[in-house]
């Protein structure tokens, strides 16, 4: 935290709130006028709303002001990220059926997303805690905890749970919530009434984007006037905070259409009463945060062998919490403080350098090397003396500090074996009293110990949080060891227990890849998307794109009784399957780079439209098990120019944005794999530019080359499950082992095979088919099959595409001829035509 602020980015809230409000006002205006096409990130009027932000000094962090400056816009075509987020949030709110009322996202939701560094989604912890503090401050309501005994305006857990339940039951009736809003007379009374709690819960959920603000008509004023009043600020008007506190009460809430249900109560409780842990993956593992015990402190035991990463975990937690003003006292019974400080330097994620709220010096760290050894009894008294001093020094000062300092200090004890070397279980009482004294420190106390100690001393019964770190595969010389983060106990809160994977080297610092089920269930609350029937992708309906694009059906010798060959809806999952190198990647990219158009626009009408609006821009994530980035680059722009061909049909189409996740054969774990994918997808959302398509290329390559993925049967269903929660089209390609057809074709090999008895191992092949079968089951809105054939026209080698299944329509019976070199369709055949040419050949 910067020294002159109560919470991170405190000084930015007024200007951001007002700017976002201005932009939302404009969005409402556009929508009222039916000019929704103006809702784009390059609309100068919308960009203007954020001019004030440019004037803020010192200049806010890079991720906040991204795209705000004219040079970025003109030269790089990068538009304000905050505007993209505002528009995305506004459009999300419009998904709710509004019936004469107005729904808008909370400006705080936009701010919440804005504060997160997209590439480092764990920075959401800082953002959330900051937005939360802002909210508490506006409503003058603070969570009750042991430190907060001074102020009367405290809320407690049962109130929050009641309120959430109330919201949920209202939701069933499809209505706005709450029934009652804060009355003038209730505000800021010493005693807190339920409407105030409702308001807090509603605004908190709105901050997270789970709910949106609802405005209906009030007295004489129409809904439109009410919402505008909420968003309008008279220049030089009243005090911002005061003004806002009055406005806040007029808002009611509706659940966002994107969410199937509300978050777990425990998660909301953790986020309101606990402190978030800004470490990658920790939000998943700890369900949003660590919640101190009702007594105030929190005791965490971290055990594991030497070198597994105990010290690193403790230091990373302390380091990551430092922006909140959390001080760390590191009590080392073993290592020299200098060494620990050095370690700290290597653990820091690089992104810290870009964030102004991290201080350059580690003045939050105080290390102390305790020389010699000490008995547990003596040490307990030592802890008591520290606790007493901390109590005396800090209690008198609590006041407003405790409202903003959720975890004022961390005390690390490294490590407790020194205390208990020749210990036996008879001394349980002593350990118990030791832990009790640690509790009196009223802090996050992290006890480090070797692997066997917690069990031996039965510490796990006494601590609040138990974590065991260990290595896996360390004995195998052919595998990369995996580090396991095993959360086996959390006493006061909801968490995702069990074994997760963690890493600690590299530029990202200490990070956790949560176990697969955890990654899935956090996405469970998000609604799964069905295909979008209002739009069509015409990729299969046009042939000869490069030279003379025409409706592919015109290639038939007779008049087909339909307008288009295939209705390909966006937001679907598509499988492209075949033998050999048929140019499946090119075909898949063509599907993903073609902009969907309204269903009533036919192929012949395409030339009448202009596609330069940014809404048509495609953004594709390529997950490749096969080729490096350059391969796809060549396909899209450099050599094969798929994009230019599409652009020749869709005039003015903006250049696509392509991102890659290239995976190399090796020991990628399923956890890391899924984590990488979800992170990429979330990152895009946070950048304000979600993907429109995902290509999973070379699924077959997983076989044998990605041992750990191959051996985990659930990874594919999980992947497709996650992908279905986002608003995009997914294409997967799968090539069958060409071994099969070559064996048939090549007599020489055939003979060899007979000699060597090299019968293909069917079991192996079956295993290799697993991803394919999963893709078929999960990702089969459309299933295309491609195989080589000899063109009946000129006898050259071409590829035939047939549709095996298609959603919402009859499967077309005709075959399309695919020219791999040009990446376009060149012919259409009926089954009879194919048969005829086959019979001619023979």
């Amino acid at each position, binding site marked *: 935290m910067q020294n002159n602020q109560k919470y991170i980015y405190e000084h930015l809230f007024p200007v951001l709130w007002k700017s976002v409000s201005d932009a939302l006002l404009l969005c409402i205006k556009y929508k009222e006028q039916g000019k929704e096409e103006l809702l784009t990130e390059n609309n100068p009027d919308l960009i203007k709303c954020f001019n004030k932000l440019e004037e803020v000094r010192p200049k806010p962090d890079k991720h906040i002001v991204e795209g705000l400056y004219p040079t970025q816009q003109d030269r790089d075509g990068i538009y304000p990220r905050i505007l993209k987020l505002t528009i995305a949030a506004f459009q999300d709110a419009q998904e709710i059926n509004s019936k004469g009322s107005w729904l808008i996202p909370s400006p705080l939701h936009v701010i919440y997303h804005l504060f997160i560094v997209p590439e480092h989604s764990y920075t959401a912890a800082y953002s959330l805690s900051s937005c939360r503090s802002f909210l508490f401050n506006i409503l003058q309501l603070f969570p009750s905890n042991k430190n907060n005994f001074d102020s009367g305006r405290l809320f407690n857990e049962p109130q929050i749970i009641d309120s959430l339940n109330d919201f949920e039951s209202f939701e069933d009736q499809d209505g706005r919530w709450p029934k009652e809003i804060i009355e003038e007379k209730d505000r*800021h009374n010493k005693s807190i009434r339920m409407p105030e709690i409702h308001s807090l819960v509603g605004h908190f959920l709105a901050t997270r984007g789970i709910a949106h603000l609802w405005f209906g008509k009030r007295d004489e004023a129409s809904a439109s006037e009410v919402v505008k009043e909420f968003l309008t600020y008279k220049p030089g008007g009243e005090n911002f905070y005061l003004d806002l506190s009055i406005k806040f009460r007029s808002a009611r809430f509706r659940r966002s259409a994107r969410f199937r249900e509300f978050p777990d109560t425990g998660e909301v409780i953790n986020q309101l009463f606990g402190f978030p842990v800004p470490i990658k993956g920790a939000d998943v593992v700890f369900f949003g945060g660590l919640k101190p015990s009702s007594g105030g402190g929190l005791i965490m035991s971290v055990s594991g062998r030497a070198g597994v990463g105990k010290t690193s975990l403790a230091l990373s937690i302390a380091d990551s919490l430092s922006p909140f*003003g959390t*001080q760390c006292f590191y009590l080392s019974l073993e290592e020299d403080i200098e060494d620990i400080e050095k370690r700290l330097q290597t653990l820091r994620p690089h992104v810290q350098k870009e964030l102004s709220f991290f201080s350059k010096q580690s003045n939050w760290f*105080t290390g102390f090397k305790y*020389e010699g050894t000490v008995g547990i009894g*003596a040490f307990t008294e*030592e802890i008591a003396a*520290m606790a007493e001093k901390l109590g005396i020094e800090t209690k008198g*000062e609590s006041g407003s500090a405790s409202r903003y*300092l959720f975890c004022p200090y961390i005390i690390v004890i490294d490590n407790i074996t020194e205390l208990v070397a020749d210990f036996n279980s008879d001394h349980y009482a002593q350990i118990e009293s030791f832990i009790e004294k640690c509790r009196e420190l009223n802090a996050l106390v992290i006890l480090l110990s070797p692997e066997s100690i917690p069990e031996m001393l039965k510490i796990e019964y006494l601590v609040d949080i138990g974590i065991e770190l260990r290595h896996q595969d360390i004995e195998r010389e052919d595998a990369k060891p995996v580090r396991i983060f095993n959360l086996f106990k959390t006493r006061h809160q909801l968490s995702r227990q069990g074994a997760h994977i963690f890493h600690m080297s590299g530029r990202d610092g200490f990070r956790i890849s949560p176990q697969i089920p955890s990654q899935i269930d956090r996405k469970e609350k998000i609604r799964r998307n069905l295909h979008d029937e209002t739009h069509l992708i015409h990729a299969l309906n046009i042939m000869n794109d490069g030279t003379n694009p025409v409706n592919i059906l015109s290639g038939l010798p007779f008049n087909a009784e339909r307008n288009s060959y295939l209705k390909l809806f966006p937001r679907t999952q598509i499988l492209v399957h075949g033998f050999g190198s048929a140019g499946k990647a090119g075909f898949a990219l063509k599907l993903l780079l073609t902009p969907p158009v309204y269903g009533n626009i036919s192929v012949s009408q395409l030339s009448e439209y202009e596609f330069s609006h940014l809404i048509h821009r495609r953004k594709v994530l390529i997950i490749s098990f096969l080729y490096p980035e350059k391969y796809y680059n060549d396909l899209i722009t450099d050599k094969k120019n798929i994009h230019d061909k599409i652009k020749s049909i869709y005039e003015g189409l903006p250049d696509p944005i392509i991102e890659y996740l290239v995976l190399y054969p090796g020991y990628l774990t399923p956890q890391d794999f899924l984590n990488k994918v979800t992170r990429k997808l979330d990152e895009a959302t946070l950048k304000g530019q979600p993907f429109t398509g995902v290509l999973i290329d070379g699924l077959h390559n997983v076989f044998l080359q990605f041992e750990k993925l191959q051996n985990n049967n659930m990874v594919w269903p999980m992947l497709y499950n996650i992908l279905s929660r986002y608003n995009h089209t997914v294409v997967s390609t799968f090539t069958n082992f060409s071994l099969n057809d070559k064996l048939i074709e090549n007599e020489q090999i055939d003979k060899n095979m007979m000699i060597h008895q090299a019968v293909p191992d069917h079991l192996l092949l079956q295993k290799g088919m697993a991803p394919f079968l999963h893709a078929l089951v999960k990702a089969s809105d459309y299933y295309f099959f491609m195989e080589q054939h000899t063109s009946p026209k000129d006898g050259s080698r071409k590829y035939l595409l047939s549709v095996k299944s298609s959603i919402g329509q009859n499967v077309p019976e005709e075959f399309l001829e695919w020219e791999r070199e040009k990446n376009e369709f060149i012919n259409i055949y009926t089954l009879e035509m194919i048969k005829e040419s086959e019979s001619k050949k023979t």
Partner: protein
Amino acid sequence: MKITKEVKELKELILNPGPTDRSGYSALDLRALANKKLKTESHKKEEEIAISLLNHVSDFKSPDISRLITYIKESGFSEEVIFNRSLKFIKEKNKELSLLQRFELIRFLLQLNAAKVSVDFVQDSLAPMKNDNPWLYAEILSEKAPYKGLEFVSYLIKSGNSERSQLTHWITSMMKSDDLALLRNVGQTISILEPDKQIQALITHYMRKKDIVIAPLKAYHINIQDTNPGTFSIADSKEFNNFLKKVQNKQKYLNDHQNATPQLAHAE
């Protein structure tokens, strides 16, 4: 007293016990073992021979006396007789004996029957050792009177005569006692007086092992630079106070600035 052949033989054996055999026994050891099995009469005779040897201690060096004492004990001679004869011998020949010889004999007496040896006798007999060999003196004094020993060691440390290896040796021997009150006293006193890291470590090690809490806790040596004894504890350390100050500053800042936000309750 004339030297009989047997006494002379034994004396030679004491002075030169010979090489040890495969089991690690010297000729002297074997003789002692053999004595144990002798019948009363022969046993008595051997005892007399050994006692006679006390008259020759002036020819003996300190290790020789140790060997003699071991021999007497191993042979299973009557402790009472030997004790009385030895005591009488020391008292008579006090001046003829060297300090170390006296020391060995007194230690022998203490081992045989500490209760019958008065503190004053030990102190008087060995008084010159206080200066010549204070640590041996401390050792023997502590054996007879641990608290006097502790007092003497404290005096040694205070007067700057502390020596790590000697002190370590002394602490180690003291810690063999079962008297927890004594151990606590030793640990506390020495840890306050002696700032040496290893000694502190040793004491904390023993305190932990015996599960003794030293009160006050300040006995722990924390800050090497801080030479003021009695203020050592984590809670009192410079580092912990720094940490406290940082925590306090943050809180103070937040409290001072809480008025930056309007007090909404009163604002209207």
